[in-house]
């Protein structure tokens, strides 16, 4: 998917470059003072990429702008965003000490480990929800403008956790199988920021790119076998980085 997004980014840049001159020459501008529907696609990095095991962002938003001067405006956008659906990954710790379900992590100094052939810890994470953006936009050359502002994110982080853990001592199974099949979710509010450049490629269509930070709260299921305590969920407040491309259509 990240390769697809790279291609989309390159293609978007080519589209902007190829489509711009004709419109720029007309010296007209639009999108200020009006509403636009915007399609978003982007690539994630940092915590977001690591948590989701995926890099893609897809979204749809409605943007409104209020002109301050002929070349500047206040913009706001409500966006539904789906960050990755997350590649499934095997979280099984095939090495290192674990706890058997009888409460032991070692027997006579010999560590208890997982039986790899009979243990699976499958995880898949996703993040989606709404973001509210507010910011300032100013034209700096012809049909080009820049924008920057803050985002208020209300995103739901969801984990699919499904597994069977079989401790072993040496070559033999020890203790009991621990199984789990849960889909915990965590919805959190976060504040982020964005900055980017917009190109008005025709009266009705625009293209923009933004770098934005996204605030969210992750959740992770912890089986007994890894910790020696009753199964639990751990949460972390995170910020991720996204480079997005958005295509706008005039309402």
């Amino acid at each position, binding site marked *: 998917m990240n390769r697809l997004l790279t291609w989309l980014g390159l293609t978007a840049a080519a589209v902007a470059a190829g489509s711009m001159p004709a419109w720029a020459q007309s010296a007209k501008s639009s999108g200020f003072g009006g509403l636009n529907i915007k399609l978003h696609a982007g690539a994630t990095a940092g915590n977001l990429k690591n948590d989701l095991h995926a890099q893609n962002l897809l979204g749809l938003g409605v943007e409104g702008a209020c002109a301050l001067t002929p070349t500047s405006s206040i913009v706001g956008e409500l966006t539904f965003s789906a960050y990755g659906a997350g590649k499934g990954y095997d979280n099984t710790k095939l090495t290192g000490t674990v706890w058997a379900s009888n409460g032991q992590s070692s027997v006579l100094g010999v560590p208890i480990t997982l039986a790899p052939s009979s243990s699976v810890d499958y995880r898949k994470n996703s993040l989606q929800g709404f973001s509210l953006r507010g910011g300032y936009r100013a034209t700096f050359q012809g049909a080009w403008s820049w924008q920057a502002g803050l985002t208020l994110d209300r995103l739901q982080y969801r984990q699919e956790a499904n597994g069977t853990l079989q401790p072993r001592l040496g070559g033999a199974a020890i203790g009991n199988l621990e199984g789990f*099949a849960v889909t915990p979710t965590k919805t959190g509010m976060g504040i982020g920021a964005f900055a980017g450049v917009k190109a008005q490629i025709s009266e009705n269509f625009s293209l923009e790119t933004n770098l934005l930070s996204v605030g969210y709260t992750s959740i992770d299921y912890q089986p007994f076998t890894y910790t020696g305590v009753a199964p639990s969920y751990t949460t972390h407040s995170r910020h991720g980085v996204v480079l997005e491309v958005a295509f706008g259509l005039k309402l």
Partner: protein
Amino acid sequence: MKIIAKLTALSFLLAAPSLMAQDTTGSVVGVIKDGNGKPIPGATITLTGSQLLGERRMATAADGSFRIPLLPSGSYALSVTAKDFIGAKATFSMHAGAIIRQDLTLKSMAQASAVVEIITTVAQLDKTETTTKTSFSTDQLTELTGSPVSGGSVAYQALALAPGVVGNVQYASVRGGGQMATNYVVNGISSRDNVTGQARLGDTVLDDSIEDTAVIQSPLNAKNGGSSSGIVAVVTKRGSNEFTGTLRAKLSNPAWSALGTPFNNRLGVASGTARAQVDDLNRTYELTIGGPIVKDVLTFFYGSRITPQVTQSATAFNPADYDLTHVRFNGQNYASAPFQANQLQVAVQKSSYHQFQLFYQLNQNHSIEANYTEAPETLPDLQYNYVTPDASIMNVQTTDKRLISLAYRGMIGSNQLVEVRYGRNQSNTQFPSGPKTPVTLMAGPSGMTSITDVWDATLNATSLAPMTSYGWLTEGASSDIQPDKRSTQSFLANYNVIFDWQGSHSIDAGVERQEPIWGTVSRNNSYPDQFFVPGRIDPAVGGALGGRYVVFPFGATIDGYTFNDINDPYVQALVPSYQRIFGADQGDVKNPTDSIYVNDLWTINNSWSVMAGLRYDRMQLKDAKGTRVDSKMISPRFEVKWDINGDQKRLVNLSYGQFRGLFNARFYRTAVEGRRNNQETYLWTAPGGERLVDYATVTNPANYGLLTSFVSGAMYDIDRNWKPENNTEITLGFRRSYDSGGYWRATIVHRNWSDLTNVFPDYRNNLLITDGALGLNTYRRILTNDPTAKREYNGFEFDFNAPLSSNLTLGGNFVYSSLIGDNVYADGTTFGGSAQVWAEQGNFRNRYQELGYSKDKFEPVGRLTQSRPIAIKAFLSYHIESGRTKSAVTLQADFISGTRVSLVNNITQDPNLLPSGVGADDTNHPTSIPNYWNGRGQFSNPDTWHLNLAYSFDIALKGKVHFFTNLTINNLLNSLIPQTVAQAGSGAARAASAYSTGYRVGSYNGYGTPAGTDAVTGIRTMNLDLGLKF
């Protein structure tokens, strides 16, 4: 003549309503005004087009309006002249069933700077249309690549691009509808397989004979019936006054595909192998030609597809390949003697296709069109069904498929249209069959040490891919020896009148008949008896052993294993059994639906319009037993539209409609006479213990005394009031159109299906059917509507088309949706190959309900979530014209969320679920209950995505002759998608752990491997088309 402006009237991808979903012609409407906005009455409209015979000419009405109906798909030029005004000319593209609006403003002579002004305003779809669909011309589809499709028709690309469509293109799901509930029509005649619901467009139309393809998400006009999901409508070309034609070679080669690569599984072990590509050029040649026979009166169109004959060969089953070489007898391994192993099978694959069309235009107002298509096909089927070592059977599957249609279209006066259409789609398929030897054998691996090795090794050996679960070897095929005949007859007569009263009305009224027919075969005539035996010792052994059959009697103890439980898989696999089939009658099964409808589109004023329609359907099912079903249904349709500014640029619509579906014959297969088989299965009970017997003994029914199962025709009935499923749809949409071309549309869709089909054991009437031999009993089962089963779809669709410049177009759609249903059986989605099995076995859910269990007991977290929540399809197309050449490059991407998965473990007969007074050993009660882990459908398969590339090139050679080529590369980046979600489990009980989370204690199966490491799908492929056209 001075050209004032260049016309850009290309509507590259239309997403909008049409008048009639299954129409084959469209209309152009408009108003002619002067520069002050006043209408110009009496202006002369002249319409010419490549598909028109002659030209259409008319004068505008008092309000300046005009309407020209019955226009075939294609490109048109519309000219207007009026006294004291300079003329104007515009061009537009017409799609089947569309109403195109082309308003024109004329300048007065005083402003004249040219004789004719070329109008730059882009034609729009008119707001008076009453269905929602996405249309494509074939030129567009060949430029827009789709996901790799099977079935070989460019029309399928429309499904790969249209919003709200997921699933296999031949079994497409439209807006959450059942994958086999989508109807496929060619020239208004259903071409779908009426047994399987499969599209089969590749058998019915040729790429270059397709004029137009539409995916109809919402066929709102009451004229449209026969689908509770959506409709794919294809319209073919017809001849015109000019000779046109194509000669196309379609080329592909496995060696052009990316190499399959091995990968490591989760344990780091290499899995899969590098796939060696075969350098074998696949060629298909297609020819079309059309033109006048009598200019302006009679035209023809002919299309043909020729696929070079291919001879395929395979070595008939070699047991050594599967390590099935031995028979276990008396504690020893003996070489087995499968039938005719290692013999070479040769089969010829060939197909052809011919389409003929005549178009007769009596005058500009009346025409007759006749189509005939035949597509005979022979396919090798060298190893099928059971693995057969029999080289003597017919090893090909032959199909004779034909589609005929006849249509009359006429205009009476200036405001009345009449269309009458008849069609028949038929397919006769002869599946492989041959001389039957009623003995089916099983063998085991060499080196087996116990009787259970025979079963275990056969079941679990990874090399058994082509085999069914037991690895039986059979001689001869079990298919019917008579062809399977399927056909659908269609008849439609529609009357349309347009008149003014409190605004404008367009009324459709008519009758329709759809009659799918399944020519049944009495199975007991072809294959009544079958014996299953655990092996035959190689005749070469000699003496008393050679060539004789091993029998393990029920009740015996062999190798320490006792065969004393009829439910034991070892018993079912290894004790010889005798299956007897009898009692089926022969006769066609007919499933006609007769309909009448009336629909009024009332345009109140420039801003408001209302559509209201009513459709009455009477569905019957007739078999050898008589009329089994006779049900009647009414489907209301309603829509209101608000054109906010009265200029069609911002249009709001709210619609409500009910859409009845069609049955696939698989639905009622088990319950109709002719397809119903009485069947009994007995186990070997002859005295004598483990021993060897000869052929006469093993095929003597008298040696099989223990009845283990029976299926009786009397066990099945059909509710006389059984109805096809009903889809109630509510939509709220907004469409924005731009003067310079392009549009976007946002639609909220709610669909709710009722009258879903299910099989109910008839506990209520206590119709218990008992066989005394084993005390076996079962209840009579009734095929009927399930009053509690629901299926619900909620979606948000956004689709757009943006001409970024004169040569660059961006388009696509974004759909976010959810689909939930009671279970996978009742919603129609899985009425596929397993449908018959399902119907035979009944359905656990209803069994619970009929027994009085609370629904909460077995559906602890509600209905099954089945959706693929996000589906995105987009394309970017760049056109270049230079001198004599035209070319286009298109990038097309799709992203579709993984399907939802329900992880389940089966809990054995929880006593807490049993009604009071019922013992756990009551055989009429469920033996297990599925338990969904942490809710139903809460897990998900991996997402899929592709990036495809298409390049098309056209150069004028001489005169009208062009050379063209289309190159498509699907999955350009060779994305390999994991196939399924991991299902963890080792087959052992989880009861021991106090910390297991999210599921109930119980046993479960399916020790899985995490997705992303084992099974992957998707590979880069390439196709090249090249040819000449004129």
